[in-house]
């Protein structure tokens, strides 16, 4: 992953990598709005204070996003159910990926199958495929053994394949 080197380049970097960060953030937050907030906070923090530390910006940002998401979850825990309902609770018709010009049904089927995966398998799959982390980085990120990260990934792919086959059979 290239470093973010120039002051003016943050927008192009953010446009290129922001969607992947948002997708990863969505695994740890209750809503899309929360995911956008934690991505925004993490990026501003990175740009102001952590840019000079070097290293892979995406891995650093993912760590920051995960922490921010847990902080947000803790704050939300204190809010009453009434407040949550007033905000509308869930979001209708949220999509994770850009619609495809062709075979968009397949994209929708994959999204639906992803949602049905166990959370711990889904987060490993998302970090590996779209977060572009290695198993070693995922293990450190999630504080799990490397073999666990690799096996969760394999289980996730297998489960996804089963879900998609079932969806194909049922039309």
């Amino acid at each position: 992953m290239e470093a973010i080197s120039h002051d003016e380049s943050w927008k192009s970097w953010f446009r290129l990598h922001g969607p992947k960060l948002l997708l990863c953030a969505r695994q740890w937050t209750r809503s899309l709005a929360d995911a956008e907030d934690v991505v925004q906070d993490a990026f501003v923090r990175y740009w102001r204070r952590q840019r000079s530390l070097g290293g892979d910006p995406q891995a650093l940002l993912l760590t920051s996003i995960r922490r921010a998401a847990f902080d947000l979850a803790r704050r939300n825990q204190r809010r009453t159910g009434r407040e949550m309902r007033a905000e509308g609770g869930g979001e209708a018709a949220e999509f994770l990926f850009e619609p495809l010009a062709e075979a968009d049904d397949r994209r929708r089927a994959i999204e639906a199958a992803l949602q049905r995966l166990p959370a711990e398998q889904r987060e490993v799959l998302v970090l590996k495929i779209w977060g572009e982390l290695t198993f070693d980085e995922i293990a450190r990120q999630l504080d799990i053994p490397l073999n666990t990260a690799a096996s969760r990934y394999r289980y996730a792919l297998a489960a996804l394949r089963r879900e998609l086959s079932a969806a194909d059979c049922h039309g």
Partner: protein
Amino acid sequence: MDEENLQLEAELKRLRPRALAPAVEARVAARLATRRRVAIGWWVALPLAAALALVVVPWRPAPEPERVPLGAAIAPDPLPATKPDEYKPVAAENLLYAARDEGVVTLADGVQARRLRRSYVDTITWRNPRTNASLTWSVPRDEVRVVPVNFQ
């Protein structure tokens, strides 16, 4: 990994995550711009204050030259000009000094979760390669992990 998994992996990689809403980029730009204005303000204000101080302080005649020991009169070696005169981070470490299991809590959506708290001291050291001066910054940090638990 078998062929079918590889195919599925390739198919997943072709999916592009949804773009961020333009409002998110606008909010980031606004926050970064606020910071930049403050930074420019200091850069302008400090030299201005220094120049003003030079103008305001009344001129005084130069004091009589003093005798100084020979050793003190020798100017120090000039600093090597090839190295940049700026601080660069040279070390960063996280020291974990406590880990506590705070027990099972119930999240707002009714999910049972275990709350784990880890206490760290983060230390970052910057060094100026030209002057060899260093600056160390240490800050305590608590990391709380909320891990959903299943009772089966």
